């Protein structure tokens, strides 16, 4: 029971961070139909900039977070203006590849500036353990869940109440009609990328706080794909549910599935048992969902012949 609670909290906090990262992904996809492979590397940038601000420049962590958000806004704007805008109307493959190209540039910049050794971020969120249902769980994980919930409510209010948020929903719904209503689609695209940058950088900061600042953050970022496919590529609710599901699946399979499978001996195929299923399970879930329910749990069904 103790372990179950611990795994659940760990899974939910991972899932919350994934949901935040995936939210930016979904915003960009809904607004402009672009699949952003660089979302994981935005995460990376967030974590490293926060590290630089706090450790290298000795800023207070509040200022550090502000600097990171500012960098995220700039990054989103620059990427949209210089890289994505020239490719409006190009085939899907070009748009996907350009964001992949971007990942290499971002990775190179991080390598140039900070090298490849993992760095430890000084804890700015309390990391004591607290007891829940008799299990000891890290306080920072609970904080991560709480902060993500606050951030998601913030995003929700933005989309429901603010002028810009409603404009973004209008563009996502029908670009032509939005243009006719006098909404600047260009500004909406730019805003979508800014929000993508901010959400990813936020996720990166939270994740760096739980683990360490390293290049592995980018591969964690790749997990946004199972999340968004599970939830539905264009659904904000799906991001939350998908994030939680993938986070929990990973933690449970890392413990329970590995425990079962590591005992299994299949002569010639798996002589020492099978471990490391946590890496595999999200993608198997992805394939299954794609085969059974291609538009995810909450995605909009499009009727098209394939």
């Amino acid at each position, binding site marked *: 029971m103790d372990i179950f609670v611990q795994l659940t909290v760990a899974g939910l906090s991972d899932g919350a961070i994934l949901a935040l990262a995936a939210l930016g992904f979904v915003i960009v996809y809904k607004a402009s139909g672009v*699949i952003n492979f660089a979302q994981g590397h935005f995460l990376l940038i967030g974590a490293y900039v926060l590290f630089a601000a706090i450790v290298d420049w000795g800023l207070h962590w509040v200022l550090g977070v502000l600097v990171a958000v500012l960098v995220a806004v700039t990054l989103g704007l620059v990427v949209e203006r210089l890289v994505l805008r020239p490719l409006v109307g190009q085939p899907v493959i070009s748009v996907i590849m350009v964001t992949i190209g971007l990942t290499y540039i971002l990775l190179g910049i991080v390598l140039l500036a900070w090298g490849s050794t993992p760095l430890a971020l000084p804890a700015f969120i309390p990391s004591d353990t607290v007891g829940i249902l008799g299990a000891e769980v890290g306080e920072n994980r609970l904080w991560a869940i709480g902060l993500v919930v606050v951030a998601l409510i913030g995003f929700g209010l933005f989309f429901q109440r603010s002028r810009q948020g409603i404009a973004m929903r209008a563009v996502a719904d029908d670009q032509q009609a939005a243009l006719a209503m006098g909404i600047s689609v260009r500004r909406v695209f730019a805003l979508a990328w800014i929000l993508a940058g901010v959400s990813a950088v936020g996720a990166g900061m939270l994740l760096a706080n739980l683990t360490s600042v390293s290049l592995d953050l980018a591969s964690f970022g790749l997990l946004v794909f199972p999340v968004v496919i599970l939830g539905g590529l264009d659904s904000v609710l799906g991001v939350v549910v998908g994030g939680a599901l993938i986070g929990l699946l990973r933690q449970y399979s890392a413990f329970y599935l590995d425990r079962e499978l590591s005992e299994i001996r299949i002569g010639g195929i798996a002589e020492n048992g*099978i471990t490391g299923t946590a890496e595999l399970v999200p993608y198997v879930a992805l394939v299954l969902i794609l085969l059974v329910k291609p538009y995810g749990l909450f995605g909009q069904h499009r009727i098209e012949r394939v």
Partner: protein
Amino acid sequence: MSTITTGVYSRTYRQDFLLRRTWLERARLALVLLAIAVAPFLLSVYWLEVATQIAIAAIGAIGLNILVGFTGQISLGQGGFLAVGAFTAGLTAIHTGLNPLAGVALAGVVGAVVGGFFGLPALRLKGLYLAIATLASQVIITWSIIHLSFLGAAEPLAIVEPATVFGWTVSGTWEWFWVIAAFAAVAAVLATNLFRTGVGRAFVAIRDQDIAAEAVGVNVAGYKILAFALSSAFAGVAGALTAYRDTFLTWESFTFEISILYLAMIIVGGLGSVSGAIYGAAFIIGLQAFLQELGGNLQGSFPSVQENLPAIQQIIFGLTIVLFLIFEPRGLARIWQRSKDYLRLWPFRY
């Protein structure tokens, strides 16, 4: 087609079947063949290794271009299919001692089967969704290699037996270069001819407009699977050649980055062009080798460059992809075509 060719006029069926029509094209082909034949005598061992890698990559890139460039199905899993071929060949070499040629053929067949299987999502999915499904296939294949013990499970697989075909043991850099260049040439001819047959035309029809293709009687589902299978068969052969040449197999040579590398090759070279795939392979592999060599040369005078070489390589690679997509989305094949036109029409613009 270039600008001044207004059409292809054939008077006989024999003429219509020709791949090369003008004496200039034939002369160029002869030059290329001559270059391949004499390359081992002119190039240093390092650059000969690079040329061999280019030839292997060209096979994989041609295969990927069949799928992405001609059929319009995005695949982020070519690295995985290379691994399937490589490990198939590796395991046959270790456990059965089969003729390497049979090993290569087997790798192609197994690659095709696995590729066809992972192509199944293409029956229900298009574009973006399909790209993500192929990403999953890449992760699943890599995971299997790391975690299943018969595939080596994290430890490299070593082929002890040297590749021997009919009593001739392929050894030495230059022998391998010729063997692999021959395979690449066969792959290029096969792919070029593929697009002169009904199957190839069906692929292109699916890319251009799948609903229209179905309306004129193309079995869209079947041909999509076939495209995946064919593409992975090429990847399987390329992987098998890597296996026999390197005699040493680890999952690290077949990661997601390798899949991206192959996509970059066909984008830089030119989507939907067999020669483009070859140019792209040469450009990307050559660029990497060049940067490596440059870094080595600068080691003495600029130690910081050597230190940051991996980072600089990443940035240059990323920039290459981004800049090509923004400024010349049709790749080197198009640039080559344009410069030919420019020369032919010079001093006039058109």
